[in-house]
């Protein structure tokens, strides 16, 4: 097997593959969005613990979401989605508008509204700490590294702000901080893990929507939860990022969602770009030979200088 044929992954126990002799079990998050209440305690706890600077107080008008997405200064992001659907068999709101017609003259005659229901999807997004992490693969300085917990962390004293990790991430997680120049993202509270504490967001979550623990255990728990949701009729429940055979070798932080991933702003089928890199290098090798060959051919074809073409 040549160097170019190898896949750049370290298996599920990513830390062991990265050279840690006695690595602790792989740690991660299971974010069960079905019990998220959208309180944003995770966002606040993360900002406080990690001393992340303020990044603009913007009113987006998008439901209750003024954070918009993950970035250099938002390592947890709570998405709010309002849908005119009921959650499984539940009837929620929107009952009996028809009777009041005519009482408010200025209101245009509304069509009769029946009990259709509305549901809120709330989900706390975070860095996925991929098994095959594109940001880590492409980092030219080694600032991004795999910790003993198999998480992916940026060393802020090494990062030179080249920005390569930003377009490499298939989830849009890591970004360059304005006025600082370096790349920043969730560390899965590497400092807290080191002293046996759970990450700040999980600690602050009042509903245990964010669960922290050894990844094996979380995967089992998620499977049970999914079966439970399906058994009570929430057929749209699904796990996202749990499968070790997916395009990034499984996420260290995975989710239970109640709709398609893209509805939450997540890519439906992310694939780590580095899987294609061996082929890219091979083709680049062919192309550079073509370049050298064409230049040589041009000179051979032209014959002696000054001669007729």
């Amino acid at each position, binding site marked *: 097997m040549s160097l170019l044929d190898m896949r750049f992954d370290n298996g599920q126990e990513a830390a062991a593959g990265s050279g840690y002799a006695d690595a602790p079990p792989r740690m991660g998050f299971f974010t069960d969005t079905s019990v998220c209440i959208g309180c944003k305690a995770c966002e606040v706890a993360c900002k406080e613990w990690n001393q992340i600077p303020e990044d603009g107080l913007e009113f987006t008008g998008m439901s209750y979401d003024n954070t918009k997405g993950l970035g250099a200064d938002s390592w947890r992001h709570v998405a709010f989605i309002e849908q005119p659907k009921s959650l499984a068999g539940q009837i929620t709101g929107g009952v009996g508008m028809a009777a009041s017609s005519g009482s408010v003259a200025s209101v245009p005659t509304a069509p009769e509204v029946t009990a259709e229901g509305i549901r809120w999807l709330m989900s706390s997004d975070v860095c996925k700490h991929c098994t095959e992490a594109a940001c880590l693969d492409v980092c030219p300085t080694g600032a991004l590294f795999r910790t003993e917990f198999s998480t992916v962390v940026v060393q802020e004293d090494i990062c030179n702000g*080249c920005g390569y990790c930003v*377009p490499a991430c298939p989830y849009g997680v890591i*970004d360059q901080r304005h006025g600082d120049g370096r790349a920043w993202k969730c560390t899965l509270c590497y400092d807290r893990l080191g002293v046996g504490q759970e990450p700040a967001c999980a600690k602050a979550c009042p509903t245990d929507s964010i669960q922290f623990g050894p990844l094996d255990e979380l995967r089992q728990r998620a499977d049970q939860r999914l079966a439970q949701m399906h058994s009570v009729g929430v057929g749209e429940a699904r796990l996202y990022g749990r499968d070790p055979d997916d395009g990034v070798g499984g996420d260290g932080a995975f989710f239970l969602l109640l709709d398609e991933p893209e*509805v939450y*702003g997540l*890519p439906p*089928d992310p694939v780590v770009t580095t899987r*294609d890199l061996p082929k890219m290098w091979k083709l680049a090798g062919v192309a550079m030979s073509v370049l050298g060959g064409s230049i040589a051919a*041009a000179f051979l074809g032209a014959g002696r*200088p000054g001669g007729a073409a």
Partner: protein
Amino acid sequence: MSTDAVTTDGTTGIHPGREATVGANVPPGGGGPRKAKRRDEPEFGSYYDLPVINKPAWESPDIPGYLFLGGLAGAGAAVGLAAQGTGRPGLAKVSKIGAAVAGHLSLVALVHDLGRRGRFLNMLRMFKVTSPMSVGSWLLSGFVPAATVSALSAVTGAAPALGTLASAGAAVLGPPVATYTAALISNTAVPAWHDGYEYMPFIFVSSAASAAAGLGLLGAPVSESTPMAFLGAVAGLSEVALSKVHEESIGIVKEAFHEGKAGRYMKAAEALTAGGAVLAAAGGLTRRRSLRAAAGAMLLAGSAFTRFGIFEAGISSAQDPKYTVVPQRERLEKKARKGT
């Protein structure tokens, strides 16, 4: 912030919060399928039509400029050695100077684009084959000094043996320098850069060769620039043809190359490169100085527009969730069909 107060006498001050036009700026999407902006656009789910991936932090003109200059430098160095070896000192000199100057400008552009410029040496902290940027940093750190010595020797006539050695070194490293940038931008999650990565290295070497040929046609004496007319004609036409084939291979992402800034740049690139290639062929046959110079200028400009066009297509494809979600959905559906 509101300056109001609520007391037993009622409320005073202004209450901007009460006037808030909630939802006035809400982009379409919000959980439901995004409404098609055009008739032929597929519907897809999105989160308030926000992008899925983050916008690349790379800036123009640094990075697209570098893609162009790196190609010119790499191919120019190879042309320089070939010209020297076939007794074309004028073409050798202009190509070597071009390679050295473009190489130095490349370094300036790359360091300028860093978030922490003082830490540029961290690029050489390790060597990683999984990071085309790391590979490129090492290539450039060998190439630029070699190209510099080669050019200085060609200009001053000093140390001809060392000059030849440096020219050979630069010529060996040149094609990799001109090509690795294709892997650099393709090895991302940006749809317009990653999808169709099979074609990117060939577009890049065509663009590099047509730039180096353009420089030779523009700067070398007519008696020596005939090989550049051949090279420019072939490379220019290949660049235009490959760009077309590439666009046809990437499904909906093709639109990113046809809209906005990227669309204008790619259109200019096509016209200039195709025109330059035809003029180069004509100039090669007739040996007219003015024809060759015009061909050279057009090829150089066309190559630059190609790089800027590809760069901008990547930026715009990263900012519209359509280019991320639709191809991934199609891939999933294909997989599902195969599975059942």
